[in-house]
């Protein structure tokens, strides 16, 4: 897969992040159910806060704060998923050649 596909994919992700301040602020399906059925209060405060509610603390402009948090998150996920792929491939121990998917045919 070429660098061009990576660039276009990341640009598409960036476009979505830039649109994210326009996202619906209504509670999602689970939150709505938890509110309606009255168990939303069971939710505990997180043990720590880094980028709470997809914002960067200290950035007062709400839209900018959301976009910055989104860019950070998308890049971290990009590296994490890539890294995970690299790790599982290496751990397989196949030394660069994927094992055949179909039953091996005997080599005569």
């Amino acid at each position, binding site marked *: 897969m070429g660098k061009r596909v990576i660039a276009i*994919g990341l640009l598409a992700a960036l476009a979505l992040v830039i*649109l994210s301040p326009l996202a619906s602020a*209504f509670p*999602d399906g689970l939150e*709505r159910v938890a509110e309606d*059925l009255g168990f939303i209060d069971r939710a505990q405060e997180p043990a720590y*806060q880094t980028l709470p509610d997809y914002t960067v603390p200290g950035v007062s402009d709400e839209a900018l704060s959301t976009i910055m948090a989104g860019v950070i998150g998308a890049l971290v996920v990009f590296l*994490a998923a890539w890294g995970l792929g690299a790790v599982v491939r290496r751990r397989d121990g196949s030394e*660069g050649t994927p094992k055949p998917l179909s039953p091996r045919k005997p080599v005569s």
Partner: protein
Amino acid sequence: MHIPDGFLSAPVAASSWVLSAGGIGYAARRAGRELGEKQIPMMGVAGAFIFAAQMLNFTVAGGTSGHLLGGALAAIVLGPWQGALVLTSVLAVQALLFQDGGLLALGANVFNMALVGVLTAYVTYRFGRRLLGENRLGSLVSTFAAAWLSVVVASLVAALELAASGAYSAGVVFTTMGGVHVLVGIGEGIITTAVVAFLLGTRPDLVTLQPARA
């Protein structure tokens, strides 16, 4: 449908961690066997795209929103095992960095969305294509069905965990969670089908589960 900490009882949170760890371990073995060098960056791109798309909540009805989960998209574009790993990356970053979904509940969230969501989509897509034919239309209809069902089934499993945790009676939490996500799933279906149609039209080679005759 990211479950925060506090909603689940300790036994439910712990057992879903165990199930998820086993499931992801299996997915990692399968993905490692099937993964080509060139597909690894694609996992990163898909993860970034799904993370970004998950930020875009859309209004469904009655002051409720939903957003893409991406399980079907990941399963169809990357295959189920790579897809499960990508969704796990997204969920882990959301929990660790954004406090979206609890840390104790991460096992359940991975189980619901990365395992149940992705595998439901994969099975539905395969079944749909067998039923509808190995062509573009059959593939897109199957994509929509896979995306919709993956959200509904994941929400029902979440409901089961909530009921088992004593959050509310099983029947009520089952019907309300299912009822909302029948609607959220339509959004999932539209977005997933649009993205898969775009990829099949431009770069079908990037779609792992592409129809035989695109």
